[in-house]
Protein backbone atom coordinates (compact mmCIF):
# COMPACT_ATOMS: atom_id res chain seq x y z
CA UNK A 1 0.00 0.00 0.00
CA UNK A 2 1.39 3.38 0.89
CA UNK A 3 3.33 5.08 3.64
CA UNK A 4 1.21 8.24 3.51
CA UNK A 5 -0.40 8.70 6.87
CA UNK A 6 -3.75 10.19 7.62
CA UNK A 7 -2.88 13.23 9.68
CA UNK A 8 -6.23 13.94 11.28
CA UNK A 9 -8.94 11.83 12.83
CA UNK A 10 -11.83 10.22 11.09
CA UNK A 11 -14.56 12.17 12.84
CA UNK A 12 -15.55 15.82 12.71
CA UNK A 13 -16.36 15.84 16.41
CA UNK A 14 -13.99 16.85 19.17
CA UNK A 15 -14.36 17.55 22.88
CA UNK A 16 -14.85 21.26 22.26
CA UNK A 17 -17.32 20.84 19.41
CA UNK A 18 -19.43 18.43 21.47
CA UNK A 19 -19.73 20.99 24.25
CA UNK A 20 -20.54 23.65 21.66
CA UNK A 21 -23.16 21.35 20.12
CA UNK A 22 -24.76 20.59 23.48
CA UNK A 23 -24.91 24.29 24.39
CA UNK A 24 -26.32 25.12 20.94
CA UNK A 25 -29.09 22.52 21.14
CA UNK A 26 -29.96 23.57 24.69
CA UNK A 27 -30.03 27.19 23.57
CA UNK A 28 -32.23 26.32 20.60
CA UNK A 29 -34.71 24.54 22.88
CA UNK A 30 -34.74 27.51 25.26
CA UNK A 31 -35.26 29.91 22.36
CA UNK A 32 -38.20 27.88 21.06
CA UNK A 33 -39.69 27.82 24.57
CA UNK A 34 -39.45 31.61 24.86
CA UNK A 35 -40.46 32.37 21.28
CA UNK A 36 -43.45 30.04 21.09
CA UNK A 37 -44.41 29.84 24.77
CA UNK A 38 -43.37 32.50 27.22
CA UNK A 39 -43.60 35.66 25.10
CA UNK A 40 -46.94 37.34 24.48
CA UNK A 41 -48.55 37.51 21.04
CA UNK A 42 -48.48 40.92 19.40
CA UNK A 43 -51.92 42.38 20.06
CA UNK A 44 -52.62 46.10 20.13
CA UNK A 45 -55.85 48.07 20.18
CA UNK A 46 -56.64 50.36 17.27
CA UNK A 47 -56.57 53.93 18.67
CA UNK A 48 -59.93 54.94 17.19
CA UNK A 49 -61.99 51.85 16.51
CA UNK A 50 -60.73 49.82 19.47
CA UNK A 51 -60.32 46.74 17.29
CA UNK A 52 -57.60 44.25 18.07
CA UNK A 53 -54.75 44.71 15.61
CA UNK A 54 -51.16 43.51 15.37
CA UNK A 55 -49.30 40.44 14.23
CA UNK A 56 -50.82 38.14 16.89
CA UNK A 57 -48.99 34.80 17.11
CA UNK A 58 -47.18 35.36 13.82
CA UNK A 59 -44.76 37.68 15.59
CA UNK A 60 -43.18 34.62 17.23
CA UNK A 61 -41.63 33.62 13.91
CA UNK A 62 -39.63 36.85 13.89
CA UNK A 63 -37.56 35.59 16.82
CA UNK A 64 -36.19 33.06 14.33
CA UNK A 65 -36.47 35.06 11.11
CA UNK A 66 -34.47 38.15 12.10
CA UNK A 67 -31.47 36.36 13.69
CA UNK A 68 -31.39 33.91 10.77
CA UNK A 69 -31.29 36.83 8.33
CA UNK A 70 -28.46 38.51 10.22
CA UNK A 71 -26.39 35.34 10.34
CA UNK A 72 -27.07 34.73 6.64
CA UNK A 73 -25.22 38.00 6.08
CA UNK A 74 -22.44 36.89 8.42
CA UNK A 75 -22.02 33.54 6.63
CA UNK A 76 -21.98 35.07 3.14
CA UNK A 77 -19.57 37.84 4.14
CA UNK A 78 -17.34 35.16 5.65
CA UNK A 79 -17.57 33.24 2.37
CA UNK A 80 -16.60 36.34 0.38
CA UNK A 81 -13.69 37.18 2.68
CA UNK A 82 -12.44 33.58 2.52
CA UNK A 83 -12.86 33.59 -1.28
CA UNK A 84 -10.82 36.77 -1.57
CA UNK A 85 -8.29 35.21 0.80
CA UNK A 86 -8.10 32.19 -1.47
CA UNK A 87 -7.47 34.34 -4.55
CA UNK A 88 -4.59 36.05 -2.71
CA UNK A 89 -3.06 33.13 -0.81
CA UNK A 90 -4.26 30.08 -2.78
CA UNK A 91 -4.28 27.88 0.30
CA UNK A 92 -6.86 25.13 0.90
CA UNK A 93 -7.81 26.56 4.30
CA UNK A 94 -9.45 29.62 2.71
CA UNK A 95 -11.18 27.52 0.07
CA UNK A 96 -12.57 25.02 2.57
CA UNK A 97 -13.78 27.89 4.75
CA UNK A 98 -15.45 29.64 1.80
CA UNK A 99 -17.24 26.44 0.78
CA UNK A 100 -18.38 25.72 4.34
CA UNK A 101 -19.62 29.28 4.89
CA UNK A 102 -21.49 29.31 1.57
CA UNK A 103 -23.22 26.02 2.32
CA UNK A 104 -24.34 26.98 5.82
CA UNK A 105 -25.25 30.46 4.56
CA UNK A 106 -27.44 29.02 1.81
CA UNK A 107 -29.32 26.87 4.35
CA UNK A 108 -29.82 29.92 6.56
CA UNK A 109 -30.93 32.02 3.58
CA UNK A 110 -33.46 29.35 2.59
CA UNK A 111 -34.82 29.32 6.14
CA UNK A 112 -35.07 33.12 6.09
CA UNK A 113 -37.21 32.92 2.94
CA UNK A 114 -39.39 30.13 4.35
CA UNK A 115 -39.95 31.68 7.78
CA UNK A 116 -40.56 35.07 6.16
CA UNK A 117 -43.07 33.61 3.74
CA UNK A 118 -44.99 31.78 6.48
CA UNK A 119 -44.99 34.95 8.59
CA UNK A 120 -46.09 37.05 5.63
CA UNK A 121 -49.20 34.95 4.97
CA UNK A 122 -51.12 36.15 8.06
CA UNK A 123 -49.44 39.55 8.47
CA UNK A 124 -49.08 40.84 4.90
CA UNK A 125 -51.85 38.57 3.67
CA UNK A 126 -49.61 37.02 1.03
CA UNK A 127 -47.00 34.27 0.82
CA UNK A 128 -44.94 36.33 -1.55
CA UNK A 129 -44.87 40.03 -2.32
CA UNK A 130 -43.47 40.78 -5.76
CA UNK A 131 -43.11 44.49 -5.14
CA UNK A 132 -40.86 44.00 -2.12
CA UNK A 133 -37.27 44.77 -3.08
CA UNK A 134 -35.82 42.98 -0.05
CA UNK A 135 -37.67 39.76 -0.90
CA UNK A 136 -36.49 39.86 -4.48
CA UNK A 137 -32.86 40.60 -3.65
CA UNK A 138 -32.84 37.88 -0.98
CA UNK A 139 -34.27 35.34 -3.41
CA UNK A 140 -31.64 36.27 -6.00
CA UNK A 141 -28.97 35.90 -3.31
CA UNK A 142 -30.26 32.43 -2.48
CA UNK A 143 -30.30 31.40 -6.14
CA UNK A 144 -26.80 32.72 -6.76
CA UNK A 145 -25.40 30.71 -3.87
CA UNK A 146 -27.39 27.67 -4.98
CA UNK A 147 -25.54 28.10 -8.29
CA UNK A 148 -22.26 28.42 -6.38
CA UNK A 149 -22.87 25.10 -4.62
CA UNK A 150 -23.90 23.45 -7.90
CA UNK A 151 -20.72 24.70 -9.58
CA UNK A 152 -18.54 23.38 -6.76
CA UNK A 153 -20.24 20.01 -6.84
CA UNK A 154 -19.90 19.76 -10.64
CA UNK A 155 -16.21 20.70 -10.79
CA UNK A 156 -13.98 17.67 -10.30
CA UNK A 157 -10.59 19.39 -10.21
CA UNK A 158 -10.35 20.86 -6.68
CA UNK A 159 -8.17 23.78 -7.77
CA UNK A 160 -10.57 24.73 -10.56
CA UNK A 161 -13.49 24.40 -8.14
CA UNK A 162 -11.77 26.69 -5.65
CA UNK A 163 -10.87 29.32 -8.22
CA UNK A 164 -14.23 29.36 -10.02
CA UNK A 165 -16.10 29.24 -6.73
CA UNK A 166 -14.17 32.25 -5.45
CA UNK A 167 -15.11 34.29 -8.53
CA UNK A 168 -18.80 33.34 -8.27
CA UNK A 169 -18.88 34.07 -4.53
CA UNK A 170 -17.34 37.51 -4.98
CA UNK A 171 -19.94 38.38 -7.64
CA UNK A 172 -22.83 36.98 -5.59
CA UNK A 173 -21.88 38.88 -2.46
CA UNK A 174 -22.39 42.18 -4.35
CA UNK A 175 -26.10 41.51 -3.79
CA UNK A 176 -25.68 41.64 0.00
CA UNK A 177 -25.55 45.44 0.35
CA UNK A 178 -28.67 45.62 -1.83
CA UNK A 179 -30.52 43.23 0.50
CA UNK A 180 -29.35 45.06 3.57
CA UNK A 181 -29.90 48.64 2.40
CA UNK A 182 -33.05 47.95 0.38
CA UNK A 183 -35.33 49.08 3.22
CA UNK A 184 -33.56 52.45 3.30
CA UNK A 185 -33.01 52.99 -0.43
CA UNK A 186 -36.44 51.88 -1.65
CA UNK A 187 -38.59 52.85 1.33
CA UNK A 188 -41.81 52.81 -0.65
CA UNK A 189 -40.92 49.65 -2.56
CA UNK A 190 -40.82 47.37 0.44
CA UNK A 191 -43.11 46.10 3.15
CA UNK A 192 -40.16 45.35 5.39
CA UNK A 193 -39.77 47.79 8.23
CA UNK A 194 -36.55 49.64 8.87
CA UNK A 195 -34.34 48.38 11.65
CA UNK A 196 -35.81 49.28 15.04
CA UNK A 197 -33.09 47.61 17.06
CA UNK A 198 -30.83 50.64 17.18
CA UNK A 199 -33.47 52.72 18.92
CA UNK A 200 -34.59 49.91 21.22
CA UNK A 201 -38.25 50.49 20.43
CA UNK A 202 -39.07 46.98 21.60
CA UNK A 203 -38.84 46.01 25.20
CA UNK A 204 -38.65 43.49 27.98
CA UNK A 205 -39.26 39.86 27.21
CA UNK A 206 -39.57 40.54 23.48
CA UNK A 207 -36.15 42.17 23.40
CA UNK A 208 -34.67 39.41 25.58
CA UNK A 209 -36.03 36.68 23.32
CA UNK A 210 -34.76 38.42 20.21
CA UNK A 211 -31.30 38.81 21.77
CA UNK A 212 -31.41 35.16 22.80
CA UNK A 213 -32.24 34.39 19.17
CA UNK A 214 -29.13 36.24 18.00
CA UNK A 215 -26.98 34.38 20.51
CA UNK A 216 -28.45 30.96 19.68
CA UNK A 217 -28.26 31.33 15.91
CA UNK A 218 -24.71 32.65 16.27
CA UNK A 219 -23.92 29.37 18.04
CA UNK A 220 -25.79 27.33 15.40
CA UNK A 221 -23.75 29.02 12.68
CA UNK A 222 -20.48 28.42 14.50
CA UNK A 223 -21.34 24.80 15.20
CA UNK A 224 -22.43 23.96 11.67
CA UNK A 225 -19.52 25.87 10.19
CA UNK A 226 -17.02 24.01 12.36
CA UNK A 227 -18.30 20.62 11.29
CA UNK A 228 -18.74 21.55 7.65
CA UNK A 229 -15.21 22.90 7.57
CA UNK A 230 -13.87 19.68 9.06
CA UNK A 231 -15.85 17.59 6.56
CA UNK A 232 -14.38 19.66 3.74
CA UNK A 233 -10.90 19.23 5.16
CA UNK A 234 -11.31 15.46 5.47
CA UNK A 235 -12.65 15.26 1.92
CA UNK A 236 -9.59 17.09 0.69
CA UNK A 237 -7.24 14.83 2.61
CA UNK A 238 -9.09 11.80 1.31
CA UNK A 239 -8.65 12.99 -2.27
CA UNK A 240 -4.94 13.65 -1.69
CA UNK A 241 -4.55 10.26 -0.11
CA UNK A 242 -6.19 8.69 -3.15
CA UNK A 243 -3.70 10.44 -5.47
CA UNK A 244 -0.75 9.50 -3.26
CA UNK A 245 -1.91 5.89 -3.19
CA UNK A 246 -2.26 5.78 -6.97
CA UNK A 247 1.22 7.24 -7.44
CA UNK A 248 2.70 4.75 -4.98
CA UNK A 249 1.02 1.87 -6.78
CA UNK A 250 2.39 3.01 -10.14
CA UNK A 251 5.88 3.38 -8.64
CA UNK A 252 5.66 -0.09 -7.18
CA UNK A 253 4.60 -1.41 -10.59
CA UNK A 254 7.62 0.21 -12.25
CA UNK A 255 9.95 -1.17 -9.58
CA UNK A 256 8.45 -4.57 -10.23
CA UNK A 257 9.19 -4.16 -13.92
CA UNK A 258 5.52 -4.14 -14.91
CA UNK A 259 5.56 -1.15 -17.28
CA UNK A 260 2.11 -1.87 -18.73
CA UNK A 261 0.51 -1.56 -15.30
CA UNK A 262 2.55 1.57 -14.58
CA UNK A 263 1.20 3.45 -17.60
CA UNK A 264 -2.32 2.27 -16.88
CA UNK A 265 -2.65 -0.43 -19.56
CA UNK A 266 -4.18 -3.77 -18.81
CA UNK A 267 -1.53 -6.43 -18.74
Amino acid at each position, binding site marked *: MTETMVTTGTTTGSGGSRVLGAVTLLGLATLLLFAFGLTEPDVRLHPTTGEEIGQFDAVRLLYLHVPLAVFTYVAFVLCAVASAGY*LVRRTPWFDTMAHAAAEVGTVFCGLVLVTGSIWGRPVWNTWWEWGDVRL*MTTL*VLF*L*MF*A*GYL*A*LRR*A*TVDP*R*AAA*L*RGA*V*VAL*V*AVLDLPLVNRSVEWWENRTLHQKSTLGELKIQDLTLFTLMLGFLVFGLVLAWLLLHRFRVGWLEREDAELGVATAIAERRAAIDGGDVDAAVGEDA
Partner: protein
Amino acid sequence: MSRFLADARLVAAKDLRIEARSRVVLNQVAPFALLVLVLFGFALDADQRTLRAFAPGLFWVAVLLCALLAIQRSVSVEQADGALSGLRLSGMSPAALFVGKASAVFVQLVVLEVLLTAGIIVLYGSEVDQPLLVFATGLLAAVAVACTGTLYGALASGLGVRETLLPILLLPVLAPVLIGATRAFDDALGSAAVDGWSWLGLLAVFAVVATAGGALAFGALVEE
Protein backbone atom coordinates in the same frame (compact mmCIF):
# COMPACT_ATOMS: atom_id res chain seq x y z
CA MET B 1 -3.34 49.45 -26.47
CA SER B 2 -3.50 49.06 -30.23
CA ARG B 3 -2.07 45.58 -29.74
CA PHE B 4 -4.85 44.85 -27.29
CA LEU B 5 -7.54 45.98 -29.71
CA ALA B 6 -5.95 44.11 -32.61
CA ASP B 7 -5.92 40.89 -30.55
CA ALA B 8 -9.49 41.39 -29.43
CA ARG B 9 -10.60 42.02 -33.01
CA LEU B 10 -8.78 38.91 -34.14
CA VAL B 11 -10.60 36.74 -31.60
CA ALA B 12 -13.96 38.34 -32.35
CA ALA B 13 -13.43 37.92 -36.10
CA LYS B 14 -12.50 34.27 -35.55
CA ASP B 15 -15.70 33.57 -33.60
CA LEU B 16 -17.84 35.44 -36.12
CA ARG B 17 -16.17 33.61 -39.00
CA ILE B 18 -16.96 30.29 -37.32
CA GLU B 19 -20.56 31.48 -36.99
CA ALA B 20 -20.68 32.65 -40.61
CA ARG B 21 -19.57 29.19 -41.74
CA SER B 22 -21.49 27.03 -39.29
CA ARG B 23 -24.62 29.25 -39.08
CA VAL B 24 -25.54 27.78 -35.70
CA VAL B 25 -26.89 31.02 -34.28
CA LEU B 26 -28.60 32.02 -37.51
CA ASN B 27 -30.12 28.62 -38.30
CA GLN B 28 -30.89 27.44 -34.76
CA VAL B 29 -30.93 30.27 -32.23
CA ALA B 30 -32.77 32.82 -34.39
CA PRO B 31 -35.69 30.49 -35.18
CA PHE B 32 -35.72 29.54 -31.50
CA ALA B 33 -36.08 33.24 -30.63
CA LEU B 34 -39.17 33.53 -32.80
CA LEU B 35 -40.49 30.24 -31.44
CA VAL B 36 -40.24 31.64 -27.90
CA LEU B 37 -42.33 34.65 -28.96
CA VAL B 38 -44.93 32.33 -30.48
CA LEU B 39 -44.99 30.16 -27.34
CA PHE B 40 -45.61 33.23 -25.19
CA GLY B 41 -48.50 33.97 -27.53
CA PHE B 42 -49.97 30.50 -27.00
CA ALA B 43 -49.37 30.65 -23.23
CA LEU B 44 -51.14 34.01 -22.89
CA ASP B 45 -53.98 32.77 -25.07
CA ALA B 46 -52.99 34.98 -28.02
CA ASP B 47 -54.69 38.00 -26.55
CA GLN B 48 -52.97 40.83 -28.39
CA ARG B 49 -53.77 43.44 -25.71
CA THR B 50 -52.08 41.31 -23.06
CA LEU B 51 -49.18 40.54 -25.37
CA ARG B 52 -48.68 44.20 -26.16
CA ALA B 53 -48.75 45.15 -22.48
CA PHE B 54 -46.18 42.51 -21.55
CA ALA B 55 -44.12 42.70 -24.74
CA PRO B 56 -41.10 44.41 -23.06
CA GLY B 57 -40.75 41.67 -20.44
CA LEU B 58 -41.38 38.84 -22.91
CA PHE B 59 -38.86 40.39 -25.29
CA TRP B 60 -36.09 40.45 -22.67
CA VAL B 61 -36.86 36.95 -21.38
CA ALA B 62 -36.56 35.76 -24.98
CA VAL B 63 -33.24 37.63 -25.32
CA LEU B 64 -31.88 35.97 -22.16
CA LEU B 65 -32.91 32.50 -23.32
CA CYS B 66 -31.26 33.06 -26.70
CA ALA B 67 -28.20 34.57 -25.01
CA LEU B 68 -27.77 31.34 -23.05
CA LEU B 69 -27.60 29.41 -26.32
CA ALA B 70 -25.24 31.89 -27.96
CA ILE B 71 -22.92 31.78 -24.93
CA GLN B 72 -22.98 27.98 -24.83
CA ARG B 73 -21.97 28.03 -28.47
CA SER B 74 -19.20 30.57 -27.79
CA VAL B 75 -17.79 28.28 -25.08
CA SER B 76 -18.18 25.08 -27.04
CA VAL B 77 -16.18 26.29 -30.07
CA GLU B 78 -13.17 26.59 -27.73
CA GLN B 79 -13.66 23.09 -26.31
CA ALA B 80 -13.16 21.23 -29.57
CA ASP B 81 -9.61 20.17 -30.51
CA GLY B 82 -8.11 21.96 -27.52
CA ALA B 83 -8.73 25.34 -29.13
CA LEU B 84 -8.57 27.08 -25.77
CA SER B 85 -5.04 25.79 -25.18
CA GLY B 86 -4.10 27.20 -28.57
CA LEU B 87 -5.50 30.59 -27.63
CA ARG B 88 -3.70 30.48 -24.29
CA LEU B 89 -0.40 29.71 -26.01
CA SER B 90 -0.89 32.45 -28.60
CA GLY B 91 0.52 35.07 -26.26
CA MET B 92 -2.59 37.23 -26.38
CA SER B 93 -3.52 38.86 -23.09
CA PRO B 94 -6.48 37.18 -21.38
CA ALA B 95 -8.27 40.53 -21.22
CA ALA B 96 -8.03 40.87 -25.02
CA LEU B 97 -9.27 37.30 -25.34
CA PHE B 98 -12.21 38.17 -23.10
CA VAL B 99 -13.09 41.34 -25.00
CA GLY B 100 -12.85 39.46 -28.30
CA LYS B 101 -15.08 36.58 -27.18
CA ALA B 102 -17.57 38.98 -25.60
CA SER B 103 -17.65 41.19 -28.71
CA ALA B 104 -18.57 38.24 -30.91
CA VAL B 105 -21.42 37.34 -28.54
CA PHE B 106 -22.43 41.01 -28.48
CA VAL B 107 -22.73 41.15 -32.29
CA GLN B 108 -24.85 37.98 -32.31
CA LEU B 109 -27.07 39.33 -29.52
CA VAL B 110 -27.66 42.58 -31.39
CA VAL B 111 -28.74 40.61 -34.47
CA LEU B 112 -31.10 38.54 -32.31
CA GLU B 113 -32.48 41.69 -30.67
CA VAL B 114 -33.21 43.25 -34.06
CA LEU B 115 -35.00 40.06 -35.08
CA LEU B 116 -36.98 39.94 -31.82
CA THR B 117 -37.92 43.61 -32.12
CA ALA B 118 -39.36 42.89 -35.55
CA GLY B 119 -41.04 39.88 -33.96
CA ILE B 120 -42.87 41.82 -31.24
CA ILE B 121 -43.90 44.49 -33.74
CA VAL B 122 -45.38 41.95 -36.13
CA LEU B 123 -46.67 39.33 -33.69
CA TYR B 124 -47.63 41.41 -30.65
CA GLY B 125 -48.49 44.69 -32.38
CA SER B 126 -45.99 46.70 -30.34
CA GLU B 127 -45.18 50.22 -31.47
CA VAL B 128 -41.83 51.87 -31.01
CA ASP B 129 -42.49 55.30 -29.47
CA GLN B 130 -38.86 56.15 -28.76
CA PRO B 131 -36.48 54.52 -31.24
CA LEU B 132 -33.43 56.10 -29.59
CA LEU B 133 -34.29 54.58 -26.20
CA VAL B 134 -34.86 51.16 -27.80
CA PHE B 135 -31.52 51.47 -29.56
CA ALA B 136 -29.58 52.55 -26.45
CA THR B 137 -31.23 49.92 -24.23
CA GLY B 138 -30.58 47.19 -26.76
CA LEU B 139 -26.89 48.07 -27.05
CA LEU B 140 -26.20 48.50 -23.32
CA ALA B 141 -28.09 45.36 -22.34
CA ALA B 142 -26.27 43.40 -25.05
CA VAL B 143 -22.91 44.58 -23.66
CA ALA B 144 -23.98 43.61 -20.13
CA VAL B 145 -25.27 40.18 -21.15
CA ALA B 146 -22.35 39.42 -23.49
CA CYS B 147 -19.68 40.30 -20.90
CA THR B 148 -21.36 38.59 -17.95
CA GLY B 149 -22.17 35.60 -20.14
CA THR B 150 -18.62 35.26 -21.43
CA LEU B 151 -17.25 35.33 -17.88
CA TYR B 152 -19.76 32.76 -16.61
CA GLY B 153 -19.28 30.68 -19.74
CA ALA B 154 -15.61 30.41 -18.77
CA LEU B 155 -16.65 29.47 -15.22
CA ALA B 156 -18.74 26.57 -16.49
CA SER B 157 -16.43 25.55 -19.33
CA GLY B 158 -14.82 22.14 -19.39
CA LEU B 159 -17.51 20.63 -17.17
CA GLY B 160 -19.68 17.74 -18.28
CA VAL B 161 -22.71 19.52 -16.86
CA ARG B 162 -22.02 22.89 -18.52
CA GLU B 163 -25.34 23.07 -20.36
CA THR B 164 -27.37 22.72 -17.18
CA LEU B 165 -25.04 24.65 -14.91
CA LEU B 166 -24.71 27.84 -16.96
CA PRO B 167 -28.38 28.95 -16.65
CA ILE B 168 -28.49 28.59 -12.86
CA LEU B 169 -25.23 30.51 -12.53
CA LEU B 170 -25.91 33.22 -15.08
CA LEU B 171 -29.62 34.07 -14.93
CA PRO B 172 -29.76 35.27 -11.29
CA VAL B 173 -26.81 37.55 -11.95
CA LEU B 174 -28.57 38.97 -15.01
CA ALA B 175 -31.74 39.75 -13.05
CA PRO B 176 -30.88 43.49 -12.79
CA VAL B 177 -30.38 43.62 -16.58
CA LEU B 178 -33.75 42.00 -17.15
CA ILE B 179 -35.44 44.46 -14.79
CA GLY B 180 -33.67 47.55 -16.12
CA ALA B 181 -34.05 46.69 -19.79
CA THR B 182 -37.72 45.78 -19.34
CA ARG B 183 -38.50 49.08 -17.59
CA ALA B 184 -36.66 51.03 -20.30
CA PHE B 185 -38.63 49.16 -23.00
CA ASP B 186 -41.85 49.78 -21.04
CA ASP B 187 -41.19 53.46 -21.62
CA ALA B 188 -39.85 53.14 -25.17
CA LEU B 189 -42.80 50.98 -26.34
CA GLY B 190 -45.32 53.00 -24.37
CA SER B 191 -46.43 50.01 -22.25
CA ALA B 192 -46.11 51.74 -18.89
CA ALA B 193 -45.51 55.24 -17.63
CA VAL B 194 -41.97 54.98 -16.31
CA ASP B 195 -38.86 57.01 -16.95
CA GLY B 196 -36.93 54.62 -19.19
CA TRP B 197 -33.86 56.82 -19.41
CA SER B 198 -33.19 56.55 -15.66
CA TRP B 199 -33.17 52.75 -15.94
CA LEU B 200 -30.61 53.11 -18.69
CA GLY B 201 -28.22 54.33 -15.99
CA LEU B 202 -28.51 50.99 -14.18
CA LEU B 203 -27.78 49.16 -17.44
CA ALA B 204 -24.76 51.38 -18.13
CA VAL B 205 -23.30 50.78 -14.66
CA PHE B 206 -23.89 47.03 -14.99
CA ALA B 207 -22.29 46.98 -18.45
CA VAL B 208 -19.18 48.84 -17.24
CA VAL B 209 -18.78 46.64 -14.14
CA ALA B 210 -19.33 43.45 -16.16
CA THR B 211 -16.76 44.47 -18.77
CA ALA B 212 -14.11 45.49 -16.26
CA GLY B 213 -14.75 42.60 -13.86
CA GLY B 214 -14.85 40.08 -16.69
CA ALA B 215 -11.60 41.33 -18.22
CA LEU B 216 -9.91 41.09 -14.81
CA ALA B 217 -11.24 37.68 -13.78
CA PHE B 218 -11.02 35.98 -17.19
CA GLY B 219 -7.23 35.69 -17.00
CA ALA B 220 -7.30 33.71 -13.77
CA LEU B 221 -9.99 31.41 -15.18
CA VAL B 222 -8.40 30.49 -18.50
CA GLU B 223 -4.95 30.05 -16.96
CA GLU B 224 -6.04 27.66 -14.24
